């Protein structure tokens, strides 16, 4: 996933991730144990963590399900991007 970083964030710690995601550090650690993100944390790690928690809360997933959903959504993003860039397809999905 290519991302234009306009405000580059320094390398993240668990505390930094907790701050940026609005989550309790224990929740962040739990999601790290489940393998949602791993150090060195990518720039969108906080967004991924928050996404998992929102999915869990609103769709009633457990954390393992939410981690899976976040993974799958990220892969869909990636594939849509590749599809859009493939020369046979000048059009963008959606």
């Amino acid at each position, binding site marked *: *996933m*290519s*991302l*234009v*970083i*306009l*405000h580059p964030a320094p390398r993240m710690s668990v505390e930094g991730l907790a701050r*940026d*995601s*609005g*989550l*309790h550090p*224990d*929740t962040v650690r*739990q999601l790290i144990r489940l393998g949602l993100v791993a150090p060195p944390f990518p720039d969108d790690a*906080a*967004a991924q963590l*928050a*996404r998992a*928690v*929102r*999915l*869990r*809360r*609103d*769709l*009633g*997933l*457990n*954390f393992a*399900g939410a981690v*899976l959903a976040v993974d799958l*959504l990220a892969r869909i993003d990636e594939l849509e*991007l590749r599809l*859009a*860039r493939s020369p046979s397809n*000048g059009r*963008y999905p*959606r």
Partner: protein
Amino acid sequence: MAVGARDYYDALGVSRDASTDEIRTAYRRLAREYHPDVNSDPGASDRFAEISEAHDVLRDDEKRRAYDRYGENWKAASAGPGPGAAGGGGAPRGGGPQGFEGFDGGFAGFGGGGGGGSVGEGDLGDIFESLFGGGRASSRAGGRRRRGGAGADGFSVRGSDHEATIDLTLEEAFRGGSRRFQLSDGRDYDVTIPPGVRDGQRIRLAGEGGPGVGGGPSGDLMLRVRLLPHPRFRLVGNDIEVDLPVAPWEAALGETVPVPLIDGGTARVKVKGGSSSGTRLRLKGEGWPERDGRRGNLYAIVKIMVPKKLSRQERKLFQELAEVSDFDPRTQT
């Protein structure tokens, strides 16, 4: 406080005598479709807020009765705050301009009237089962057993990221700089385009996504760049290609001709005598900006053009040429 004037039953697409099961099923289906983390369209989050608010009221017998009786003003008309509002603690701060108040209030109330219960327990658990193919008969009890993460009182989370597409011409993407961008919901922004941005890249507008919950930060708005096809220039990797139309005699005899540049300027290139269509003339450093500050190349590609109509004399000269020349392009390699 309502998200919209829309009737809660209409919002969920169920009849007024729908059973609790029907309401829950409708909510789940719509939530999967409009959840802002699944559907990144900025309009989806408003729709999801509406669905959540409707579900939050209609799933609760007491609230539903009050709503059936008093309609839109059910909250004011029914005595005292509901259990969700009472247990919510910091809930009122969630009230945003887009009407997220009911949205947040609903979350605070999810733990049930007990106050301080963990978030997302109870019948939420069986949604997981139905999403991922487990059985659902015993799921209610299973859901109860699941441990929540943060307690409801301290619960907070960052808002979702929204995504929209920003169309740029090649010139705009090349130049970069400030540009006005309007979202479908009417909000508009001055966006700083990094020079040399490419198709599919995202520009992040920090804090312009969905609002956070419980004091969590807002999400970001991601603008995905789509480069519009250009009538002249084509972007190929770091290089730009442009057709260079030349007359047959210019191609045969050689000529210096103007080439348009992506920055709006013009360069002059020498077409050597004997150039056929497809010959690529390189203009170094006139291509697309690369990360390291260098630029790719511009390739002007010779394209021999002939007049649609020939004058009498042109025809005569071409005929003469045809008689004199023994050139056969089909035997060339």
